[in-house]
């Protein structure tokens, strides 16, 4: 007998049933409470507009997540365009004849050898969080997804519609900038 079990939408219950799930999903990617809240709300609005297109093949939550994913990509594109380019990015390597060599004043300084013992310090986590928060938004988003949330490279590339070489350039820039920030705020002798 063919299955006739189609999923149906219950917009009246969306917030109760799915808001926390969508919010937690979003925070793992954008790490900004207000922005995450807006993206969840926009997802519900877009879902209401598109509800006639829902065919009932996927569950209500899966369908809502697919809309949220589009919202997250749209946000990523926005920070990757005009706004992202306006953010100050620090250069660490030279251009021109000596392209790719360290800029002398940005060369890593030596750290205290005893520093590793302090790694479990909660203040270190605070310093780290501050440095991650100071990254350009695009770097922060990709760095958090890869390093803190530990998503697979392929998954991030798919979600943000970027290439893996693009991802590694972003991770490299983020980590170089973070190293410098942590050196200044925590590790310097």
């Amino acid at each position, binding site marked *: 007998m063919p299955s006739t079990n189609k999923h149906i939408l219950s917009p009246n219950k969306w917030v109760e049933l799915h808001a926390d799930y969508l*919010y937690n999903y979003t925070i793992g990617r954008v790490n900004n409470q207000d922005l995450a809240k807006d993206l969840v709300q926009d997802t519900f*609005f877009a879902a209401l507009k598109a509800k006639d297109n829902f065919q009932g093949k996927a569950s209500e939550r899966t369908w809502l997540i697919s809309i949220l994913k589009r919202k997250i990509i749209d946000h990523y594109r926005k920070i990757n365009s005009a706004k992202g380019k306006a953010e100050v990015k620090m250069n660490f390597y030279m251009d021109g004849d000596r392209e*790719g060599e360290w800029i002398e004043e940005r*060369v*890593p300084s030596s750290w205290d050898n005893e520093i*590793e013992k302090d790694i479990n310090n909660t203040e270190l986590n605070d310093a*780290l969080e501050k440095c991650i928060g100071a990254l350009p938004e695009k770097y922060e988003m990709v760095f958090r997804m890869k390093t*803190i949330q530990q998503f697979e490279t392929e998954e991030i590339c798919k979600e943000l519609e970027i290439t893996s070489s693009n991802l590694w350039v972003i991770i490299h820039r983020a980590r170089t900038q973070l190293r410098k920030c942590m050196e200044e705020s925590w590790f310097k002798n």
Partner: protein
Amino acid sequence: MKLSCDEATKICDKNQYGEASLWDKIKLSFHLFLCKKCGMYSKQNTILTKCYNNHKDKEGRTEHCLSEIDKKHIEQEVKARI
């Protein structure tokens, strides 16, 4: 075979996630043998990865929820559009 410092540290970063290829790792070792600046970067990168992993363990346990006020607000907005 020859890498710039920018390329070498990029491979070094990729390697922190276990995703550098064997050939990349060979080129990186060769570069690190000759370049003290990148050697320092590489050593510190290992320490930083431990810090990031610690941070990840702490963050990973946190389940994020909307406040009741926010939920109510969103609910009102959604229901007004139904």
